[in-house]
């Protein structure tokens, strides 16, 4: 959604939109009051829809401290796929032959209604359970990992974690194409654009692994 008052330039454009809309409404109302009302409703609805569907400007790339550490730091973003074998395999390859520290972050995914009403206890609890299971599974594989629940918005969860963890590498785990909401929203591409870090994308097919 585009905010019509996001900046001075946007507000100036909005003045133009309102002037044109007002002129059209007055013209229609002069012909017929009900026609004027109909034009007003259509214009207000149309303008609102246009601003609603207009994409927001892309946020600027994020600069966070990272670099060469004695211990290689890997940030893992995953949710339902957090216990997938493909992810574990990738992480083992990531840290092979060097001391490493892993932070597993599971965004507290929630429904839109629950998100807007701040009803996120259930989502956080579910994410926490997945994190516990994942950290335990990684521990059994000999990988030092800790976990935490992140923001419902995965890009925000990555940014939050990077600021406190100082990762050297990010691993994003998703479902396969067609079943992944994150891929549908271009999460991996957007993360690569925003964060100046090596980003590995792992596809975990839980159905195939379970078969």
């Amino acid at each position: 959604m585009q905010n019509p008052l996001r900046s001075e330039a946007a507000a100036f454009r909005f003045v133009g939109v309102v002037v044109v809309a007002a002129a059209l409404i007055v013209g229609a109302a002069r012909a017929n009051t009900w026609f004027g009302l109909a034009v007003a409703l259509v214009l207000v609805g149309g303008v609102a829809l246009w601003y609603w569907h207009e994409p927001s400007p892309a946020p600027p790339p994020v600069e966070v401290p990272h670099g060469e550490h004695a211990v290689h730091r890997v940030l893992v973003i995953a949710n339902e796929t957090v216990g997938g074998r493909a992810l574990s395999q990738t992480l083992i390859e990531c840290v092979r032959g060097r001391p490493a520290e892993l932070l597993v972050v599971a965004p507290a995914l929630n429904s839109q209604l629950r998100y807007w009403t701040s009803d996120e206890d259930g989502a956080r609890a579910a994410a926490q359970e997945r994190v516990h299971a994942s950290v335990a599974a990684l521990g059994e594989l000999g990988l030092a990992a800790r976990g935490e629940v992140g923001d419902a918005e995965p890009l925000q969860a990555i940014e939050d974690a990077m600021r406190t963890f100082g990762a050297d590498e990010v691993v994003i785990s998703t479902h396969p194409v067609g079943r992944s909401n994150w891929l549908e929203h271009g999460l991996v591409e957007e993360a690569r654009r925003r964060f100046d870090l090596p980003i590995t994308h792992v596809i975990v097919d839980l159905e195939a692994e379970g078969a």
Partner: protein
Amino acid sequence: MAAIHAEHLEHPPEPYYSSRVAPPILGMFLFIASEVMLFGSFFTAYFFVRVVNGVQWPTPPFHLPVFVALINTCILVTSSFTMHWALQSIKRGNVWGLRAGLLLTFLMGLTFLLTQAREYSRLGFAPKDGAFPTIFYSLTGLHGAHVFVGLSILLFMTIRAFRGHFSPEHHHGVEIGGIYWHFVDVMWIVVYTTVYIL
């Protein structure tokens, strides 16, 4: 980089905001959202009076100075252009363009307000004369109060511009004041269209 990280671990992380909108602009946006609600309550009263009365608007024998208000509207819309020009100028490093733009915007806003005050004195009716005059003065007066606030902001912006406070890199003060001024302009177009024309 390692030094940066070490320092990072010794201290709390740098504060940052996640909304992707600069806090001052977000503040102005929230302020304007509350203003929209305020104007909305006045418009609700206005439409209630018109619909419930079900008679000609303005109710006889009152007349509204539609032509003078049109001139005033043109002045206010033009001031949005000069405001925009001022900001574009400072973004390009043109300090005198900024100063001229802000000064012109201020003068046009002042002209608008003085013209409105002059019209008030010639209308021939007072707020106590009935529902129509009450809602007319309430709506236009509320907008006039916002123009006054906008003029005060513009005055400070203009003084700061002449003191050299703004640069191509630092002009948030102009940006934020500009958003408010355009909002005042938009509200007037709505007031003029609904109260004077329709």
